[in-house]
């Protein structure tokens, strides 16, 4: 057993310890904090598995935005904690343990006994990289070889924002999501909210731009941009826009819309839906990604803000 394996066991143990904490601890707020820590450390496992694209996504979502989303809910639901009393009985508990143990055993068996090396599509992906002239194989899969999945994923984002908005009470329909934050204009929070976003926006665009040839991409970059927007909102520098605004809705559909147009263009001029002509592949993909990073940033920020709560005055 060498030192690398020991390190891997330590990492897995810490991550699992946080998982157990998240499930077992009594208070919801503590569980949320535990889950944020879990999400950040899982990013380390992904780096160790040589999947840096996923590590970036996990750091942005699992640790950053997802954590903030859960935390906000935990803070607002704190008063409701007392009303939950009905804990499951002994029988439910024991059968849940049995079911979970069985699932874990089956998955562990699959990990131990499945063939190594596993069947792979990596050579096919690398072999067809010429078609897009992008060097990052994951971006190639996301934007070209399985572009349909990515387009539908953006549609899922759009559907969920529609779902969230439709939960607004009647008097706030089409209004501002979330509470209006106010802060001391000379305070330290406002200072940070003025200083950090320019840096964050540069980092976001860098992560997006480098995604063509190295790990990164529109989603990870968009998540960073969204977090900077929400930071400015939390510091009271700006307010969430009323969801009925036309420009906002245009931004939200720009990414999937352009994707769909390019896809239909492929059907019209070329051979198949979403087939890019090889000479135009790179500019087309970049164009879609630029539209998408704006859409993603707006969507993620609004998902964090939640349902509209205040009507437009």
């Amino acid at each position, binding site marked *: 057993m060498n030192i690398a394996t020991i390190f891997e066991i330590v990492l897995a143990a810490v991550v699992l310890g946080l998982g157990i904490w998240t499930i077992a601890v009594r208070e919801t707020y503590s569980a949320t904090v535990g889950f944020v820590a879990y999400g950040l450390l899982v990013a380390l496992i992904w780096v160790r598995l040589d999947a840096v694209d996923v590590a970036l996504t996990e750091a942005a979502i699992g640790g950053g935005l997802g954590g903030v989303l859960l935390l906000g809910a935990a803070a607002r639901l704190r008063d409701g904690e007392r009303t939950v009393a009905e804990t499951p009985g002994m029988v439910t508990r024991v059968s849940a343990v049995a079911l979970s143990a069985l699932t874990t055993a089956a998955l562990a068996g699959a990990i131990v006994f499945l063939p190594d090396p596993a069947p792979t599509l990596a050579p096919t992906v690398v072999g067809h990289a010429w078609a897009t002239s992008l060097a990052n194989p994951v971006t190639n899969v996301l934007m070209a070889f399985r572009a349909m999945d990515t387009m539908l994923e953006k549609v899922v984002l759009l559907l969920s924002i529609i779902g969230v908005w439709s939960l607004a009470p009647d008097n706030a329909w089409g209004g501002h999501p979330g509470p209006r934050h106010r802060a001391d204009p000379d305070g330290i929070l406002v200072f*940070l909210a003025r200083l950090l976003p320019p840096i964050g926006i540069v980092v976001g665009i860098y992560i997006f731009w480098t995604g063509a040839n190295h790990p990164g991409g529109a989603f990870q970059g968009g998540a960073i941009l969204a977090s900077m927007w929400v930071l400015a909102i939390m510091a009271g520098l700006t307010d969430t826009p009323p969801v009925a605004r036309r420009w906002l809705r245009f931004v939200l559909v720009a990414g999937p819309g352009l994707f769909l147009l390019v896809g239909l263009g492929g059907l019209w001029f070329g051979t198949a839906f979403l087939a890019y002509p090889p000479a135009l592949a790179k500019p087309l993909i970049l164009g879609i990604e630029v539209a998408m990073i704006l859409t993603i940033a707006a969507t993620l920020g609004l998902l964090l803000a939640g349902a509209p709560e205040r009507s437009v005055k």
Partner: protein
Amino acid sequence: MSLARDIITIAAVSAGAFFFLAGTVGLLRFPDTLTRLHALTKADNLGLGLVVLGLLPQAGSLRDGLKLVSIWLLVLLAGATVSQLIARTARQGETAK
């Protein structure tokens, strides 16, 4: 030359790890929020700074080195602001009791 670089790395990263240790001991031993905050921010920022310093000789290019330093500066900025906010909250919580 590479030996000298490795020695710098080992020395700085060890010192950084020591500060992480000191921070954790502080977190475990100090009695109240403000002192624990002190332990956390001082030790972590210095610890990360030393780790970054240790990794600089191993960086492949100038750009990578600049990225490393800018990460440290970002964390310093964040640490300074967030610990201010936490400390204020803690103090107000105390006076209100």
